[in-house]
């Protein structure tokens, strides 16, 4: 199939970027989207041009590294997928595809489609963990956790930190990402004890990093490749209010 690409090219955070046109004549519909990008890059390199920089690693939808806006949607048109799992069979022969980086003030562009998502790590550093040293934990089965609780904690823990929620949110809010971690840890008994401190610290860190506020448009849930639910945000708000009320 033939594909017409309009890709965002930008040298670095300071330089202005622009959309550049590329044509690919022989795209196999079994290719993944990133394999299609590889094919383009191979051609650019052989012509002596710089290839399009984009982040990726596992190509299995689990590491959260890849991330780009494809036709205006984070990770492209198919719900529940990362860009690396999108396949060219989802596009029509002759289609024009716009490819741009995730855009948010807290995610500055590094080059082309690569952005800096380290703000997410700093949110986790603020409290997204359980304070336990390594080496001498208690026997695991002394801590009973019901099947339902474990499954529900897992639903929140499954976040891959890709940033699609931020990129798709009109306020560039990191509420879905942050709330997923807060919920995961608040739901299990190991994490309960620190829940109040954790939510206060993580939420304030999120604000400091320059993410916007959540105004409940729920676009994040729609775009999340892992199907993380906005109920996590409700849970975060509840934990936050509770923590503030009971704070001494």
């Amino acid at each position, binding site marked *: 199939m033939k594909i017409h690409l309009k890709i965002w090219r930008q040298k670095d955070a300071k330089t202005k970027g622009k959309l550049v046109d590329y044509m690919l004549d022989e795209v196999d519909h079994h290719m993944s989207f990133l394999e299609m990008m590889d094919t383009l890059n191979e051609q650019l390199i052989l012509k002596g041009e710089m290839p399009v920089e984009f982040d990726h690693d*596992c190509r299995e939808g*689990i590491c959260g590294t890849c991330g780009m806006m494809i036709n205006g949607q984070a990770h492209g048109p198919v719900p529940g997928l990362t860009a690396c799992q999108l396949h060219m069979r989802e596009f029509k022969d002759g289609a024009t595809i716009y490819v741009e980086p995730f855009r948010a003030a807290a995610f500055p562009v590094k080059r082309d489609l690569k952005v800096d998502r*380290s703000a997410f790590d700093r949110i986790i550093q603020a409290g997204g963990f359980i304070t336990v040293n390594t080496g001498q934990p208690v026997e*695991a089965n002394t801590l009973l956790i019901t099947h339902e609780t474990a499954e529900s904690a*897992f639903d929140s823990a499954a976040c891959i930190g890709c940033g699609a929620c931020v990129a798709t949110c009109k306020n560039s809010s990191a509420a879905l990402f942050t709330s997923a971690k807060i919920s995961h840890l608040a739901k299990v008994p190991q994490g309960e004890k620190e829940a109040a401190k954790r939510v206060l610290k993580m939420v304030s860190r999120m604000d400091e990093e320059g993410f916007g506020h959540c105004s409940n448009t729920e676009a994040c849930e729609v775009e999340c490749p892992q199907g993380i639910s906005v109920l996590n945000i409700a849970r975060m708000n509840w934990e936050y209010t509770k923590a503030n009320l009971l704070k001494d």
Partner: protein
Amino acid sequence: MELDAKIPAGPLETKWSQYKAQAKLVNPANRKKLPVIVVGTGLAGASAAASLAEQGYPVTSFCFQDSARRAHSVAAQGGVNAAKNYQNDGDSVYRMFYDTLKGGDFRAREANVYRLAECSLNLIDQAVAQGVPFAREYGGYLSNRSFGGVQVSRTFYARGQTGQQLLLGAYQALMRQVSLGKVTLYSRHEMLDLVVVEGKAKGIIARNLDTGLTERFAAEAVVIATGGFGKIYYLSTLAMGCNGSAIWRAHKRGALMACPSWTQIHPTSLPQSGDYQSKLTLMSESLRNDGRIWVPQLPDEQRAANDIPEQERDYYLERRYPSFGNLAPRDISSRAAKERIDAGFGVGAQRNAVYLDFSKAIREQGKDKIKEKYGNLFSMYKKITADDAYAAPMKISPAAHFSMGGLWVDYELMTTIPGLFAIGEANFADHGANRLGANSLLQACVDGYFILPYTLANYLSGELKKEKITTDHPEFDRVEKDVVTQLDGLCDIKGTKTADYFHKKLGKLLYDKCGLSRSAEGLTAAIEGIKILRTAFYKDLIVPGTADEINSELEKAGRVADYLEIAELMCHDALSREESCGAHFREEYQTADGEALRDDENYCYVSAWEWKGKDSLPVLHPEHLKFEFIKLSVRSYS
């Protein structure tokens, strides 16, 4: 050179506790004077960095991804083993030790493997304490399943995302130490060389992948936790960035490499569909608990799977290995698949696959039950292939998956360079010539959480009074210059072929000649082929741009340059081992019915290789394995 594995004396059961009791400690006040570098933030690196920082050593940690959470460990699906015997099915530390040793075809150290099984108990406790949401029974107790190659249920899992959840636990512990100021984290940094001063590891040179500039880091010990190099085959189940560069550069600075040719080829990957393909996706081995593997009885069968009647199907694993059947260990299952595919019974468009069929399980247990167990895998399969595996069998194929070889380490996980440690998949590990499913996450975790914190302290206690080296030392100048020269050199070739081109060629060559089966003839040809490819690489590579900017092509080129050398060592290693064991199947050494023929008399050793320069042959230093506690037996699964 005599290799000393430093295995503690005494009974198997007490070796590790004896070691711990006798290992030297470092006074807490002195620990802050002993900085440590940990390269890699996968399960091994993150757990080690967090544990060492907790103890008070200043830790500097590195990964090439944009975040420490993205290491390859995140992709592991199936589970992690521990001999907890929660299922009361007869499991024990000893049984796990035995299964692992036998699974590895008696080519690993007894003491290491026993310690792995022993520490497995604590790992589950550790992960649960960190909040890892493992699967639970309705009563609240932890749940288990069984995994390829064993007959007890000792695998703990978090749906099909066990690696992700374990890694997040370790990553969060690491982030906690970062926030406390005890770990300095350098993401988007790639270690490109090791600095050795007076015979000891004292630092690294890393390239900042955002600026392209090389940077120097000094420490009193360096820990390499950079994972496996299976991506050398190009098509593999590994993440795209996985590479062998850190271990290889350390090797060229004097660390021996052990058993580099032992590669696990996983039986349940999705088959290759075209030349453009960049990787192969693994389908969790847990599928083999309910899926039956078969091929048509007629070669070149054209009918769709569902149109082939039962009596015209060949359930070859059940036929050849009746007591393990579809759960036969990975090397055996992969080889059996290759045998059928090569004999012309392969299925799919490229005739390179076998069927993994759930129809019986669906009939007996209902679709809902199967959906509950494997739903995410079935939907992943659909996303990639556009096929519905509830309606027709999956197509699967063997793919390179895991490197059992790596840097040689002693019982303390120290390489032959004092002060240089290697943990996780980067060392030659405790898996022997084959790894049983779910043992790798375990090994990566226990190395980092439970073993290194003791053995590294034992080493560091001796360094306290020694003079401290800084990055001003002339050796840092020299090594940094080597790195810069290499990077600029790659940019300056300005040929006509990309790094991927060479990587693909190398991968195909290795897969054919040093993959599922090997022969002296094939390996000799491969060594010649690799040499030719390497010469072409340095003549005809094209890397756009320069070294002092973001340049992922340059990153790739550096990794391929190393692969082109590692590949040759792999072939030498495979050629020198004139026996078949585990994942190493030498065609010349097989039984009448095509099973691996081991030679304990002559090859019961770990092969450790010394680098002698690029124009010289590597030198073999065998570490002879002593089996004091078990008797070697023929590894039979039939």
